[in-house]
């Protein structure tokens, strides 16, 4: 028997709704991003109405959401698009009050087959004022029908185990669960930033956080083969791919850093090595960012986390960047909070894979934690920094990182 309803998706916008005159620009970007994110699942009609977005499979693709597993994947993909507070799978159908009751009961059957719920309530909205019953009456009738079908349930309007939502508009809609979105603003509404991506936990989270403010991302990774392995590079590509689920396509620039690092090692003092290295990384990243039209650098630094992230060390690396801000969205976060975000975006398991690197040979046993100007002047005396930066820029290889399509997942 074919369904008497069609499954569609209802998504709710967050912060965008607070925008003033340029709200339209944000909404258009959000819809574009949704269309891009759902491309692999086929064609959808995506229509915005007030603070909500209705996503409906097009006729070329009518049954994509009727299979529960696929529908869940699509719903999950929708919630990964920045700018949405939540999204639900919704049954769309026509008919009178009887039809609404039937669908509400059937939805309840499905919910109870998966969950051991005891209490519920019904909420309704009537957009179509021609409908003969008012919202409270719709709630009562639907509630009664559900209780008749499931006498073991109890109504609890304050803290129910589940809620059945009923909406009466041009069509009728019932739904229950809301899957939380990642909120934020649509990517593409806040320019482009250059993320300094390592293989660790922090930098992918930093990228995700800036993308959640609408920023498009490019990334630079400093590769020191043979001190770091091919696998470490593969891991960084995997991390970029995970972030790209949220941020859209990322251009990953891999800078061959080995010779630069050896030069630093031979020509600057041990205890300043991390600082001189980071200064050069920032310079290379800034030059590349300018070339690529990025308007800021993004790092995963968090104050005090390691020797190179004291305020003195941050100041002294920060000052080499002259033409753009350096954003450090994790600066005030506790490591545990960062790990939680990393888990939530699905990066943690990849971040903790053990092919860290053998760059530890370049890490001094006792790095300077409070470097001063005189130290850095001394440390860079013997270095030809412009030449090193040039070498870094010339040795860049760029990869286009896109999220893995469903087929390969």
């Amino acid at each position, binding site marked *: 028997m074919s369904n008497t309803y069609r499954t569609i998706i209802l998504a709710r916008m967050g912060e965008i709704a607070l925008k003033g005159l340029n709200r339209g620009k944000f909404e258009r970007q959000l819809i574009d991003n949704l269309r891009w994110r759902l491309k692999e699942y086929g064609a959808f009609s995506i229509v915005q109405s007030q603070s909500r977005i209705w996503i409906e499979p097009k006729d070329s693709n009518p049954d994509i959401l009727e299979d529960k597993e696929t529908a869940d994947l699509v719903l999950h993909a929708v919630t990964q698009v920045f700018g949405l507070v939540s999204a639900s799978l919704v049954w769309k159908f026509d008919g009178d009050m009887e039809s609404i009751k039937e669908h509400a009961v059937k939805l309840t059957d499905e919910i109870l087959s998966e969950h051991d719920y005891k209490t519920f309530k019904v909420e309704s909205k009537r957009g179509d004022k021609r409908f003969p019953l008012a919202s409270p009456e719709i709630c009562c009738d639907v509630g009664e029908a559900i209780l008749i079908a499931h006498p073991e349930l109890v109504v609890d309007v304050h803290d129910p185990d589940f809620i059945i939502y009923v909406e009466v508009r041009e069509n009728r809609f019932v739904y229950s669960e809301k899957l939380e979105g990642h909120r934020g603003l649509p990517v593409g509404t806040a320019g482009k930033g250059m993320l300094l991506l390592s293989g660790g936990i922090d930098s992918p989270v930093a990228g995700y956080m800036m993308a959640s403010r609408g920023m498009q991302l490019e990334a630079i990774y400093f590769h020191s083969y043979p001190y770091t392995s091919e696998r470490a590079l593969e891991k960084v590509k995997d991390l970029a791919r995970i972030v790209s689920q949220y941020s859209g396509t990322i251009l990953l620039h891999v800078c061959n850093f080995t010779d630069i690092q050896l030069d630093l090692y031979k020509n600057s003092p041990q205890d300043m090595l991390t600082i001189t290295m980071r200064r050069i990384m920032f310079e290379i990243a800034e030059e590349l960012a300018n070339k690529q039209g990025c308007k800021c650098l993004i790092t995963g630094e968090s104050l005090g986390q390691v020797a190179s992230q004291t305020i003195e060390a941050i100041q002294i690396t920060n000052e080499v960047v002259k033409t753009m801000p350096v954003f450090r969205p994790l600066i005030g976060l506790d490591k545990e909070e960062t790990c939680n975000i990393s888990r939530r975006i699905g990066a943690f398991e990849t971040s903790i894979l*053990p092919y860290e690197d053998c760059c530890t040979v370049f890490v001094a046993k006792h790095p300077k934690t409070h470097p001063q100007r005189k130290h850095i002047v001394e440390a860079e005396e013997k270095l030809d920094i412009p030449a090193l930066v040039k070498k870094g820029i010339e040795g860049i290889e760029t990869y286009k990182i896109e999220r893995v399509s469903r087929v390969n997942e």
Partner: protein
Amino acid sequence: MSIYLDNSATTKPLPEVARLVYETLSGEESYGNPGSLHRLGVLAEKDLDESAAKIARLLSCKKEELYFTSCGSESVNTSIMGYVHQNPRAGKKIISTKTEHKASLESLEKLSKEGYEIVYLSVGSDGRPDLDALTAAIDENTALLTFTHVNNETGSILPLEKIIEIRNKKNRNTKIHLDCVQSLGKLPISLSRMGVDMASFSGHKIHALKGFGLLYIKTGVRVAPLILGGGQQRGMRSGTQSPYLASAFALALEEATKNIDENLVKMTELRDSFSKELADLGATILSPYDALPYVLNVSFPSFQSETMLHCLEEKEIYVSTISACSSKTKKISYVLSEMGVKRELANNAVRFSFSRFNTKEELEQTVTSIKEIYEKYKV
């Protein structure tokens, strides 16, 4: 041309093996299930039987004592767990060392949780188990001894004859399982004369194919099967057998056995001059001097294992490390650590493992490359 010095991990299949596999798999009548009653089945069974006979001849045992498995680990698992499970009255004690392959150690760990007493003998700097401790440990209650013939990380060779002697003196009922994965094709193996009761082998370490293991169980020794099913191989190892994997193994074993003594002499010479050159560069040889010459474990000052591995990889020379390089946890090889090798040395350990096909030129090229690596990458 690349230089492959990771033959203890796996080997390149012989061209003859590749040809044989291709011909068998593409043949019109050579794909049958040896259990089928029709002609194709009979052909496959005959093929399998010939391979078993050939392998039995090469290893000096009866073909009824051989079972085909999927890998060395399966053979090891079956021997260790299958023997003690089948023979509860043989005793609750098993004696081994901590330098065994994980296939053994994990089996022993499982048995320990089931209530068996596992005695791990300490090993000396030569990688050999303490034989006095062995003499003291074997008693009435000892069901099984399990040892590795040649250690996969260092090449150290088990003093098998002495162990058999001790076993015979202390408790003739105690059985011995020998893990021969690394010694097969490199040391002469004559099962009927060695005095072992069970032995495990693997195909892909002798230029045959991955996916094939061999298990020897001496007549009269009873072992519980690990894999149950259609009762193939006299109920000892169910699952459809693969005639082409077996004939590939038989062929590779035949080739390896042909000049086994000459190869051992040649490899000893190569290893000796290679290790001398490395020592001259300041490296420390961690393998015992009397180890099997096919394996050489070396520690390079100033280079963590993985760095050296990638430096060599850049020059298309492939080796292995056991210690993983990570800034947070530095894991070193448990084998080296049991042998009492210092942490600083173990951190920098690299394993070169050779095959009879490696040449003097390749090893010389490797020494040259290591010199270049020191010049370019030493920090």
